[in-house]
């Protein structure tokens, strides 16, 4: 193998390793108070005012709870209490946010702060997730949120 190819191979290996370390360190340092929920305030008015079409569906919270366990609990915690990687959802900012605002953040993610876009989850399922998230009460008000618990 020529010197140039060896260099390229080592460069690739080094960059891959740095990707792992950069990614994991960024996630571990995320607990350092950089979650400020400002994205909820940046939601466009039209999106914020959207009503949740699953509001009258009695199954929506149960569906949302299952989906939360599958897609969200990994970062936000099994009961939405937050983790090193993502903020708690049991806070006033989330409780007071409109369903439309939560749906918008879920759809668009907060990419620069580590939350991926979730538009690949079909729209009715995202609204069910919003229904479930709205049942989570701030930790100071209730220790066990309605409908919460390990999915």
């Amino acid at each position, binding site marked *: 193998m020529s010197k140039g*190819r060896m260099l*390229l191979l080592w460069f*690739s290996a080094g*960059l*891959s390793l740095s*990707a*792992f*370390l*950069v*990614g*994991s*360190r*960024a*996630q*571990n340092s995320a607990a350092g108070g950089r979650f400020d929920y400002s994205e909820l305030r940046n939601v466009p008015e039209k999106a914020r005012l959207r009503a949740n079409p699953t509001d009258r569906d009695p*199954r929506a919270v*149960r*569906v949302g*709870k*299952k*989906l939360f366990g*599958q*897609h969200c609990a*990994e970062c936000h915690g099994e009961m939405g209490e937050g983790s*090193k*990687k993502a903020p708690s959802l049991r806070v006033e900012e989330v409780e007071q946010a409109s369903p439309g605002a939560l749906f918008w953040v879920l*759809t*668009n*993610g*907060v*990419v*620069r*702060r*580590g*939350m*991926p*876009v979730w*538009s*690949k*989850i*079909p*729209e*009715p*399922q995202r609204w*069910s997730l919003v229904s479930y998230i709205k049942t989570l009460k701030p930790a100071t008000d209730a220790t066990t949120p309605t409908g919460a618990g390990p999915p």
Partner: protein
Amino acid sequence: MARFPIAGILIFCSLAGAASHAQESPYIVTYDHYLEEPGNLELEYFSTLGTERSGNGFHAYWVELEYGAKAWWTTEFYTDAQSTFGDGTLLTGWRWENRFRPLKREHFINPVVYVEYEQIQEADKILKEVEGHDVESDQAESNALARGTLDHELEFKLLLSKTFRGWNVAVNPLATKNLLPNKAWEFGYAMGASRPLRLGASPEACNFCRENFIAGVELYGGLGDSESFGLHATSHYLAAAVAWNLPSGWTVRFSPGFGLNSDSHRLLLRWGLSHEFNGFGEQVSRVWEKLR
């Protein structure tokens, strides 16, 4: 040095129970704009069974390790191999792929920039992309001859994708430059459309619920090169594609593809199996800290 195998074993043992329910698309060639969730590792295996009019059929296969470095950056390492019936089996090369999402929100069309370095032999038959004047007869050469040429290629793609009312539509124009001297730029395309069989979901975890299945179609082929751009002497394929996303974190894909002209393989039968591991980056970081 013994620390590294130990670290590897520790990481994989700790990940054994940390599977993530995936929502993977059925595409095998086309990319949509969704990146790997940050810190997650996806291990994927794919096979392509191909017919060959002027030679022996083949079974080509590859393994991918896909890691979400950031919510806007996914990096992936591939290694591929092939068995040509009546000839032999050989490792054909490796690829290192990176995808970057430049925009921070969803838009009408969502672009992702794709950059890949490939070091592959002429004997490579995985057909992960079709480009330039790739035609069926290129792959009729025996393994002994084809393994002698090693290509170094840089591949660029613009992944354009949109999801609306459950439908995903993705279009990927591509350009490839072989880094060997006097090689032209080669062009190609891939496009796909897919939709889950059901947009709602049931409250219980289930393997066979319709929402776990995503069906779609892919179209891909070559567009010539910088010296002779166009459809002359190029191959094109139309493929049906289905993905089955299991609650355990496994995804199964199946895709029969059919050549659209006489320069294409008549049939490319593809399938794949993948599994997503949560929090791989965090585990690596923890083990790393322990070892230091």
